[in-house]
């Protein structure tokens, strides 16, 4: 039995992205396509999202022109491919406060947002440091904290302190402190509802950006695969690898159960289709009785 349907929804992409930024040390490798996505989770009476993407209004034009990000589409368009409207979303898990994950807050008027307390507290500390230390604020949009204040004012912000089990039935939140960001969060779905689950999916945020981060060819050191974190972190690579090990333990070392949102090859591993807007929808799993969103 499966409680939740899980879909990865691409909302924008950029081509020609250096692999070395996604897999630390891959300097010699080709450029790849980098999709921007969020994850839709439906079941047990909930419609939940993991992250909400960035707002075109705030950054879109600049990103499109400067960095060649194409095909940005608003949540209403992206979600409609699964028969969902933004108003239907009741729960949002923010994995971290980077602009491309915690932007479109206004689009979800009925959702309660969950974010690690440390993520916001530590960003704010960084923002109070002298300019010569500003490297640490990269990718942070000051509006993120404003979003948090607005949500708090209307009682729709829930702080997460470390781990939170069954935040909605069968869904657990985990903290990876000082990793990709100061308070990065990853989400585990126990899809059989069991305490010790045989059917876990991990939604990894940017702790795992591509398959290669957890399944890097290990032949150099005589192992089949090895962990290889991405290059972008304000924390430590060690903490990222420790988080990966925790994720892998939870999924019984079945790497395919760890879902990276910046992976262009999800379609090779999961049923998927390209929408009318030329964006990929990947069906990670289906709840009992649910209708596929990718097969007609």
């Amino acid at each position: 039995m499966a409680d939740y349907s899980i879909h990865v929804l691409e909302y924008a992409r950029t081509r020609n992205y250096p692999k070395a930024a996604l897999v630390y040390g891959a300097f010699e490798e080709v450029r790849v396509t980098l999709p921007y996505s969020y994850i839709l989770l439906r079941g047990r009476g909930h419609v939940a999202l993991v992250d909400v993407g960035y707002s075109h209004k705030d950054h879109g034009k600049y990103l499109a022109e400067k960095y060649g990000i194409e095909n940005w589409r608003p949540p209403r368009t992206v979600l409609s491919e699964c028969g969902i409207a933004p108003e239907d979303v009741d729960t949002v898990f923010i994995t971290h406060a980077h602009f491309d994950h915690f932007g479109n807050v206004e689009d979800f008027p009925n959702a309660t947002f969950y974010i690690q307390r440390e993520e916001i507290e530590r960003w704010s500390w960084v923002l109070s440091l002298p300019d010569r230390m500003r490297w640490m604020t990269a990718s942070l949009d000051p509006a993120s904290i404003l979003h948090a204040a607005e949500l708090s004012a209307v009682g729709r912000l829930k702080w997460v302190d470390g781990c939170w089990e069954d935040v909605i039935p069968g869904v657990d939140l985990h903290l990876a402190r000082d990793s990709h960001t100061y308070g990065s969060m990853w989400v585990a779905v126990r899809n059989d509802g069991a305490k010790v689950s045989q059917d876990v999916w991990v939604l990894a945020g940017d702790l795992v950006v591509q398959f290669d981060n957890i399944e890097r060819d290990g032949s150099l050191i005589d192992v089949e695969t090895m962990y290889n974190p991405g290059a972008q972190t304000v924390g430590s690579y060690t903490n990222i690898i420790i988080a990966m090990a925790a994720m892998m333990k939870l999924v019984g070392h079945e790497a395919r159960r760890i879902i990276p949102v910046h992976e262009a090859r999800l379609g090779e591993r999961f049923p998927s289709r390209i929408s009318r807007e030329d964006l990929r929808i990947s069906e990670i799993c289906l709840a009992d009785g649910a209708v596929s969103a990718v097969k007609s």
Partner: protein
Amino acid sequence: MPDASAARHDPHPGDAIARYLAATGPVYGALTRLVSQVSLLLLLSDDRRLSYTGAAAARTLAQETETALAALPVPAAVGRHHWMLSQAMDRLSQVLKRLRRGRMDAAAFARLIRLVRSAHELLRLAALPEAGLSLADLRRACCSCVR
């Protein structure tokens, strides 16, 4: 936001605007940081469990920014741009002042949130990313390797 009619009075409007933009960069950056810090103070006043001791730092930054903003060389052509920054500054200062007076009801809190939101909106309108005036520093963002 150069406006052509005003630029006619300046024999070298391009230079003056360039000087203005160069001097405005740090001020704009400080304003965006103030948005975050003031937002956090609002959050703090709403949620006592958050630990943050940045009120004094935010007030200092506000004072410094206000002074720097007033000292900017402002050619007529960019008067409107400078006005938007001043308006944003003014709203943020109002919020800081009100926060200092302590507890407030939900309506007052909502008003302060709206002030910060409109300050942010003004900064968004005044953003000139090609000149380094951008809300978020995306130069090292996960997309900035694409050239």
